[in-house]
């Protein structure tokens, strides 16, 4: 029922020999489950792979890749399929290489403060494992409870704590990568200073599965912060809120998260939680602070109180109890579904601009909302210029669907015009591919192609992605 013909029996047998008979899935009904991810791409018979192959070890991946290479079979790697841009959706049949059985945390090296793990480990599990030993794995994409490390590396996942702790790239010390022909490459290592050769590790981080299969990753860790606190600050305008965040960073009081939401988001949350918005509220910051103990938090909180006061805040609350902390975070966590509840469909976008351009890009998005006649609530990570406008629409209505996609085009253009990028943390995948060549320009595009040709001359690895 796929548009691709079934594999020849000896090919299937080859994959079965490589990973074990029960770990090759070929029934169309089962394979259908590996044809989608968390992007808004429609379900489509053309994205059904011919088979799903589920290796358990690096050696098994290597055997699978060697066979795929020999038989010219496209390979699309997949973790939890929680990506937002179609990165793990197969476009040319072939196999989906599902890495979800590779779930071992291999070594926690407390002396060097590093951990190595397989690609199928859930982000939250790595975090919790390290935390039990007093160590901290900071990358925290919104999907961290179900996303897996292979995907985090392949998409260079960010998260709320990026403002203080950076993104996945900042923690990858080394990788084991199975190349297109099955060869096994080791990059980086535990030496903190390492300039022996090209930064191959960096090349694979964010490569969206187009250059090789990450079979193991080595991450550096930090000491786990001893105390955390939460602040909630309300402003009249997004400009004031953004200015306050900039002031904090300049002043060296860096929150470990600085989540911002606009008036529409506040309205959605108030509606969903049956609460009242503050009179005149136009923006809200939810700030996390961390440090060595209660005193350190108190000092940061006081400085932020003073800074936000100068910026013109209209409400300030520092969570005094566990319950209050929970209540403030619940507002942020419930935001996505509260916004989703405002319309039948939502095109959730992910753009990134220089921090100073945050207020301006929000103004332009508001203008796009006005001209398209659609609501576009904006929330995001104020500290790092990464924002998530949500175009609310009803895709069943062709006119609205057209306007919604035009609005998305406009949002990308605004980000690029302000020196920003198409994606802060979701990657390009399929959904942003049409915008990629213009966004990076011809020289960068050709450089990307040259790298791709060097590592995957047959074009078998996650074909059809990025450009």
């Amino acid at each position: 029922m796929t548009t691709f013909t079934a594999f020849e029996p000896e090919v299937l047998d080859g994959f079965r020999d490589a990973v074990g008979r029960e770990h090759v899935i070929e029934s169309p009904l089962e394979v259908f489950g590996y044809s989608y991810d968390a992007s808004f791409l429609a379900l489509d018979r053309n994205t059904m792979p011919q088979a799903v192959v589920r290796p358990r070890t690096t050696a098994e991946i290597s055997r699978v890749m060697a066979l795929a290479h020999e038989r010219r079979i496209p390979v699309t790697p997949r973790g939890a399929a929680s990506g937002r841009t179609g990165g793990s959706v197969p476009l040319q049949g072939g196999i989906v290489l599902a890495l979800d059985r590779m779930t071992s945390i291999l070594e926690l090296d407390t002396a060097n403060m590093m951990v190595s793990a397989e690609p199928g480990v859930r982000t939250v599990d790595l975090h919790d494992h390290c935390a039990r030993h007093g160590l901290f794995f900071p990358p925290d994409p919104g999907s961290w409870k179900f996303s897996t490390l292979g995907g985090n590396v392949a998409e260079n996942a960010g998260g709320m704590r990026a403002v203080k702790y950076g993104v996945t790239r900042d923690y990858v010390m080394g990788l084991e990568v199975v190349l297109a022909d099955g060869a096994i490459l080791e990059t980086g290592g535990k030496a903190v200073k390492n300039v022996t050769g090209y930064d191959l590790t960096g090349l694979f981080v964010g490569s969206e599965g187009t250059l090789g299969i990450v079979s193991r990753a080595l991450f550096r860790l930090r000491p786990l912060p001893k105390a955390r606190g939460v602040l909630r600050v309300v402003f009249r305008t997004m400009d004031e809120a953004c200015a306050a965040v900039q002031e904090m960073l300049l002043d060296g009081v860096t929150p470990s998260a600085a989540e911002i939401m606009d008036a529409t988001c506040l309205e959605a949350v108030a509606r969903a939680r049956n609460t009242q918005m503050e009179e005149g509220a136009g923006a809200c910051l939810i700030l996390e602070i961390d440090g060595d103990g209660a005193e350190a938090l108190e000092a940061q909180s006081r400085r932020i109180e003073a800074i936000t006061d100068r910026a013109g805040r209209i409400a300030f609350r520092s969570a005094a109890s566990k319950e209050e902390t929970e209540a403030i975070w619940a507002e942020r966590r419930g935001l996505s579904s509260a916004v989703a509840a405002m319309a039948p469909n939502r095109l959730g976008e992910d753009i990134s601009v220089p921090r100073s351009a945050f207020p301006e890009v929000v103004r332009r998005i508001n203008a796009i909302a006005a001209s398209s006649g659609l609501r576009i609530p904006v929330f995001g990570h104020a500290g790092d210029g990464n924002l998530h406008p949500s175009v609310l629409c009803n895709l069943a209505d062709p006119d609205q669907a057209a306007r919604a996609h035009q609005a998305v085009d406009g949002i990308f253009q605004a980000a690029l015009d302000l020196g920003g990028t198409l994606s802060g943390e979701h990657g390009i995948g399929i959904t942003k591919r049409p915008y990629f060549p213009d966004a990076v320009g011809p020289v960068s595009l050709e450089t990307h192609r040259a790298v791709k040709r060097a590592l995957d001359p047959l074009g078998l690895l996650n074909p059809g992605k990025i450009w």
Partner: protein
Amino acid sequence: MVTAATKAGPGPFAAARGKVLGCDRCGTCLPVCPLFQVQDVERASARGKNALVRGLAEGLIPPDREAQEALEFCLLCRACTDACPGKVPTDEAMLQVRQALADTLGSTPLRSRWIGRVLRRRRMVGLGAATLAGLRAVGLHRLLPSQLVPRETSRQAYLEKYAGPALLGAPDPRPEPALHPGAKVAYFQGCGMKLLFPDASRSTQRILAQLSPFQRPDHPCCGLPHLAHGQREAFLELAQENIKAFEAADLVVTDCASCSGTLKHLAPWFADDPVWADRAARFSAKVMDLTEYLAAAGYRPQALPGATFTYHDPCHLARGQGIRRQPRQLLEQAGKLIELKEKERCCGGSGSFHLEHPQAAEAILRRKQEDIQGTGAQVVVTACPGCLIQLTRAAEQSGGAFQALHISQVI
């Protein structure tokens, strides 16, 4: 660019598809789905099944036996819905799609058919209960597989084990006055209680009798087994019979979480029926779970000093009806309650699921058994015969580390 525009017109799967339109396949449900935990392929997960519903509706997946099997593989436990940012009702989608598949294919899967046939006939249930009672009297029920006929632990055995001889035969504690003075209370004895846990059912009736006189109208199955397996006509007939049978009662109390959950939610199924809509709504409003009723009525259980309990929340009670506090309140009065790890995680019982998918149910139960043993409690208590089948099995497999009892047997 390809978008998720609505492609499917009206068809047999339109209603089911409507239930899952809010699913953006984010993956939040993956780690909480008990079946995905024991069978880690996408098809087994809540997200995978919601996608299959859309695949059927959009013509990407043929409506065949394989699809039917895949969509029968759901516990209807709502763990996914609880975690879901958009609160997608996967369980409701499963009921709809199973019905649509049964209509399209002309039949439900063979394995779930017999159970519907038996439970549809009141006489068969009565006959079954009598036969099992006869077998139990001479111990022959042990020849039947324990998934089918669990080895029920009696209240008497429990008291003998934990209470010490002084308490045996002592008068039951005097209850406070009933919830609604003069309310006519009726007991809904579900098939599971009647057939498989007669001692627990007697305990329930003993407690009810302390609060007020109660009726025991002749009534059929609540219909959940039929609704769950694409036999909607049978479900609706049974519902009408139940509405009629309890017309004279002010309160319908049941000690089965699945029955109370089903009976409380009859109204939507008759919303468009001019004859039955009001009657169904009135009936549903009268239904109370036993623990809900006892807590509201101020029932004070007799304390058994030294008894330690852990409580397993039935899916249909905690997530299905929001009843979490009442059973705990009762247990804390009766003894010491030690909370179970992931207390609301489904035990794998789910009606006849454990018979149809014994391996998956067993794998889920093994985790539950470990968690129960982790508490060190003497007794795991629950409030649904579906769970009690599984937990009784876990108790047996634990080699006597704990017992499994219905809440009515320990309060």
